[in-house]
Every structure is written in structure tokens, then in C-alpha cells.
């Protein structure tokens, strides 16, 4: 009870409201919402900053489902699967029923995910604290980078190129082992490397603003929002389908732990899993409430589980978790196993905050549903100037550095061009964040031993190496030996 304070509670509510507000706007998902709001947390107390940001995170993931159901436009990649059955339900006149199911399953999924975070992360941190050395870190990061293969998408070549570009950008600045300057074009400012917050704000927030600005004159995201059906019927359906809810939560909690994959993949996996199990009457895709329940329970469960590697190892489970990582660093905290011993109060406070955010999501979502659905009718020409001011001042306020603003503009342009020419941003960003850790752990390992076999000198290293190898060669082998014969049979 000592961690439940009125101030924290209020900041969670504020965060939830802002998160839903941004999440409702198509294209501006949890990652954009968090990147836009990072500057607000600079001067906040650490616990309040985390409470606010967790509220935003939970709210944005839920908020993006509103437009998926009402308008057939996913608020973000985490609610794509919600659209498959949510919008057909709206067409049939059951929009409120679909939203009721979405709110209830999101809340249950979020609470279960928070409990998973509370109970699992401490054990993981404890385990790693006693087993981690440089080669282990090297393999853990290798596993994280291997997970990117799933996040890369269909075009592997361009995905790998994006990831390698991220690794290269991560090496700019002073080499932390030999203290030499590298790839800084002789610039004094670039000596410290490319700062994380301006890069994230540029590549996510500014690039989205630039894309939005190209819309038609006077265009808003939607023209009108009409709602029919019953919220309570949706809630009832969620409780009736409790087995499906639990299955989807487990899928979300497990997938969320793997870096770079997150809610975007998890909601699709949960949806197709539900479809394979319950689609005997061929109702999925035509307005089956179970499709909405599976996708929403799963994507909110990933919110907490993406924090497990972030807190225990300092490896972000997804882009929102990466932004959270940057907030922790701004507030002088170092994520990793030691966080659980040196900052016990902070960790407990964060767990309680995640739980509170998910508990109060339900009443807040019910009360504000109609208002937030109308937000999508705001004109783009009003939205864009305000968002632009927010991004530019947000990054300039960090340390009043013009260099930070230049980074935002450069990476804003890069993000816009990447989106325009279908180059995935997720591999770039995750690699940029993991690259420096990867290099340092590799070089420390090689310096500690005489040869490269130091990397497989303990059974624990070998286990990690096998996992990494399976993640790299597994998907192509699966496609070669399992998927193709099935296609031939069909």
C-alpha cells in the first residue's frame, strides 16, 4: 500500500487520457505518443515520470483499437488484428459491443501482463545477476538481434540493411573502450554520438507529422463517428470466452519478452491462433467478437511483458520500451539486474504503477469512449502545427542544444523517407540501441580471453548461443521444410 499515492494515481490518469487521445489518431501509436511526451518528463520526479509514461503507454495501446473498430483504420500496428473483426461488427451495427469487448479484454490482458511482470522479472534479474559475464551479455544481445529477423518483415535484404545502418549509427562518437573518436566527421558535437531522445523524436514523431501534412486540404482523419450496440454485451462476451482470453494473454506475455517483436506481431499471432481454434463456422473476419477479444487481450498483455527485458537486462522489448529506457537514463537509473537490488523502491513503484494503470483503464475507457471517438474528426491542418511545436520545443528543452534540434530534423527526414520507400524502421532503431552494448560486450569478452572460444567457455554461453542460432536459422529452415511441402499439397 505504501506505493499507492494520490499524486502517482493522478499522473497515471493524466497519462491514460493523453495516451488514449494520441492512440486514437491513426498512425500515432504508443511509440509516437511516448516519443512526443518524453520532454515533459525531464523535470518530473522519477516515480511520477514513470507513472505518467506508463499511463500513456497503456492508454495508447488501448486507444488505437477505437479507430480499428469504428473506422477500419488501425491507430497503430498493435491493433491491426482488432480491425479484422472489429470493423465488420461496426458495419453490422454492433460497434459498442465490439468496443465493450475491446475495453474489457484490454483491461484483463493488461492486469495479467502487469502481474506477469511483477512475478517473473525479479526471478529473471536474480538469475542473470549470478550468471552474467561479458560473453553472456554478448549472446543475450545476439538473441535480441536475432529476434529482429521476425520484425524485419517480408523483404529480408532491406530489413538487414536497415538493422546494419542502425548498428553503424550506434558507433558514431567516442569509442568507449579505446576512447578514440569515430565517424564524427570531425565535429565536436558528434563526438558524444547521436543522442537517443532526439533520434527517436525525429524518426517517429517528426516523420509522422511530415506524412500527415501531405493530406488533402481540410481533411480530418474521419468524417463522422456513429456507435450502436451494447458495451455491456461486449464485456459479457469477454468473460464468457475466458479460455480464449487466457490463451491470448499467454501469447502476448511470451512474445512481448522478445526484443523487437512486441505487440505488433503478438496481436496477429493471437488472432490467427484464435481463428485456427474457433473458426469452425467460418465467422472470423466477418464480425466474430472472439477476434476482437483475442487481439486486444494479447496486445495489452505485451505492454508489461516488453518491460521484462528492459528492466532486467537493459535491452528494450520494443520501441515504447526503448523510449522508457531513455527516460530511466535521463533520470539517472541504469536498467539491468542491479536495478532490482539498488533501486528496489523504484522497481516496486513501477510494478504497482503498471497495475494501477491497467486497473483504471476500464472505467476511464468507458467514461471517455464517445469523446475520444470524436477526436478523429479534428482537421489535420490544426493537428500538424501543434504537434510540430511540441516536437521542436520538446527536444530543444532537453538541454537547449541546437545540435539536438538538427538531429531531430535529420532523422525526421530519414524516417519519412524510410516510411515512403518501405524501409522498416524497427530494425534500425533496435540495432541503434543495442549496437554499442553488443560491441562493448564482444570486445570485453575477447580481451578477457586469449581467443574467440571464450564466447562458448561455459554451458550457459552454449545454451544462449544455441538459442541465438535457432532464431537465425529457424525461420528459413521452417519455410524450407515445413511450409513449402504444405503449399505443394494444397
Amino acid at each position, binding site marked *: 500500500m505504501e506505493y499507492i499515492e494520490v499524486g502517482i494515481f493522478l499522473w497515471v490518469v493524466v497519462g491514460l487520457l493523453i495516451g488514449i487521445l494520441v492512440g486514437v489518431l491513426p498512425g500515432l501509436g504508443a511509440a509516437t505518443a511516448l516519443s512526443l511526451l518524453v520532454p515533459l518528463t525531464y523535470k518530473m520526479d522519477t516515480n511520477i515520470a514513470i507513472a505518467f509514461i506508463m499511463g500513456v503507454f497503456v492508454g495508447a495501446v488501448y486507444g488505437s483499437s477505437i479507430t480499428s473498430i469504428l473506422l477500419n483504420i488501425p491507430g497503430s500496428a498493435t491493433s491491426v488484428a482488432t480491425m479484422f473483426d472489429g470493423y465488420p461488427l461496426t458495419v453490422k451495427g454492433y460497434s459498442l459491443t465490439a468496443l465493450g469487448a475491446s475495453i474489457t479484454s484490454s483491461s484483463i490482458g493488461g492486469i495479467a501482463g502487469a502481474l506477469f511482470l511483477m512475478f517473473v522479472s525479479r526471478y529473471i534479474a536474480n538469475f542473470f545477476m549470478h550468471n552474467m559475464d561479458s560473453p553472456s551479455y554478448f549472446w543475450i544481445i545476439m538473441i535480441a538481434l536475432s529476434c529482429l529477423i521476425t520484425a524485419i518483415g517480408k523483404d529480408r535484404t532491406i530489413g538487414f540493411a536497415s538493422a*546494419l545502418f542502425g548498428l553503424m549509427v550506434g*558507433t558514431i562518437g567516442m569509442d568507449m573502450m*579505446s576512447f578514440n573518436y569515430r565517424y564524427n566527421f570531425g565535429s565536436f558535437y558528434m563526438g558524444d554520438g547521436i543522442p537517443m531522445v532526439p533520434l527517436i523524436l525525429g524518426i517517429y514523431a517528426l516523420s509522422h507529422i511530415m506524412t500527415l501534412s501531405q493530406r488533402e486540404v481540410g481533411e480530418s482523419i474521419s468524417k463522422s463517428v456513429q456507435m450502436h450496440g451494447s458495451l455491456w454485451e461486449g464485456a459479457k462476451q469477454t468473460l464468457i470466452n475466458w479460455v480464449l482470453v487466457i490463451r491470448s494473454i499467454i501469447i502476448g506475455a511470451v512474445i512481448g519478452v522478445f526484443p523487437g517483436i512486441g505487440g505488433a506481431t503478438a496481436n496477429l499471432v493471437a488472432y490467427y491462433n484464435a481463428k485456427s481454434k474457433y473458426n469452425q463456422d467460418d465467422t472470423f473476419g466477418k464480425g466474430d467478437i472472439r477476434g476482437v477479444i483475442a487481439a486486444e487481450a494479447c496486445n495489452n498483455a505485451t505492454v508489461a511483458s516488453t518491460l521484462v527485458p528492459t528492466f532486467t537486462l537493459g535491452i528494450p522489448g520494443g520501441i515504447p520500451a526503448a523510449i522508457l529506457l531513455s527516460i530511466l537514463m535521463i533520470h539517472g537509473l541504469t536498467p539491468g539486474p542491479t536495478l532490482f537490488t539498488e533501486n528496489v523502491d523504484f522497481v516496486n513503484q513501477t510494478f504497482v504503477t503498471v497495475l494501477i494503470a491497467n486497473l483504471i483503464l476500464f472505467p476511464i475507457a468507458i467514461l471517455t469512449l464517445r469523446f475520444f471517438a470524436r477526436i478523429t474528426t479534428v482537421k489535420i*491542418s490544426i493537428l*500538424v*502545427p501543434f504537434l510540430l511545436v511540441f516536437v521542436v520545443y520538446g527536444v530543444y528543452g532537453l538541454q537547449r542544444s*541546437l545540435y539536438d534540434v538538427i538531429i531531430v530534423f535529420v532523422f525526421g527526414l530519414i524516417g519519412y*523517407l524510410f516510411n515512403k520507400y518501405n524501409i522498416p524502421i524497427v530494425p534500425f532503431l533496435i540495432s541503434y540501441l543495442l549496437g554499442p552494448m553488443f*560491441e562493448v560486450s564482444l570486445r570485453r569478452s575477447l580481451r578477457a580471453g586469449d581467443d574467440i572460444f571464450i564466447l562458448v567457455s561455459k554451458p550457459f554461453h552454449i545454451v544462449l548461443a544455441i538459442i541465438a542460432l535457432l532464431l537465425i536459422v529457424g525461420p528459413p529452415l521452417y519455410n524450407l521444410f515445413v511450409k513449402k511441402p504444405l503449399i505443394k499439397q494444397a
Partner: protein
Amino acid sequence: MTKQNILGELILKLILLIYGLYYFIETITMDISYNARIYPFIISLAFNILMIMLTSEVFKKYLEQAKNDRQSFKIITPEAIKLFSTYAAGILLIALTLLVNYWLAIIVALPLLAYVLEDKKFSLISYVFLPVGMIIIVYIIFVRFLSVRLPVGF
């Protein structure tokens, strides 16, 4: 995909390739230890191989398209103007902030961008209400009433 789009993609990939080559050459030539060089050498080598593959692929596509599509380029489209204006408004905002202060920067840049995005009504309203609103809310309420000290620059 239009010829213009393919050319855009080709230019982007060429820039990435040039950056990759710069990185690779700097890795080979710079005066640092072997240990500090090996990791950047591997990633830049892999990046350059992939970028050469990708660039040549787009270049072939562009040549094919150029044979069939003989239409001239339209670089200045309404969308491009809006995109450029948004980018320029951001630069104007920070330039005015550095040269004058936050207040004037917002009052000038925000309605100007709304005007460029062809929302003349909102632009006019914000030209009138932004200064008035700022004075009422920030100055009277925060400074006079609540005695809050504004940050430097305001």
C-alpha cells in the same frame, strides 16, 4: 510505382551507399587499435554489400521504367509543397526562438504553417487568439496571479 518514385528510392539508396562507403573507408584508414576496428569493419562491409545489391536492383527498375514512361518529372507537387513547408516551419520555429523568443516563434510559425496547409480560417483565428491567449493564460494567470517565474527565453 511511378518513375519519380523509383528515382526517389534510387537517390535514397545511393545516399545510404555513399554513407556506407565513407564509413568503410574511414574504418580502414583511421588510426585506431585493431580491436576497435574489427566490429565496424564487419558491419560496414555487410551493409555495403547489401546496399550495392539493393541499389543495383532499383537502378535496373528505374532503367526499365524510363524506357516505357517518357513523362516529365513533376517535382513541385502540392504534397511536396506541404511537406517542405512543414519542415521549413520547424526550422523557422527554432530560428525565431534562438533569435527572438519562444512567444514570437509560436505566434509566427504556428499560424503560418496552418496557412500553408490551406486552413486559412484556423490560421486567422490563431493569429488573433494565440497572442491574446498567451497573454491571458501565461502572463495574467501564471505570472501575475500564481507568481510563477517563466523559463529563460519566454
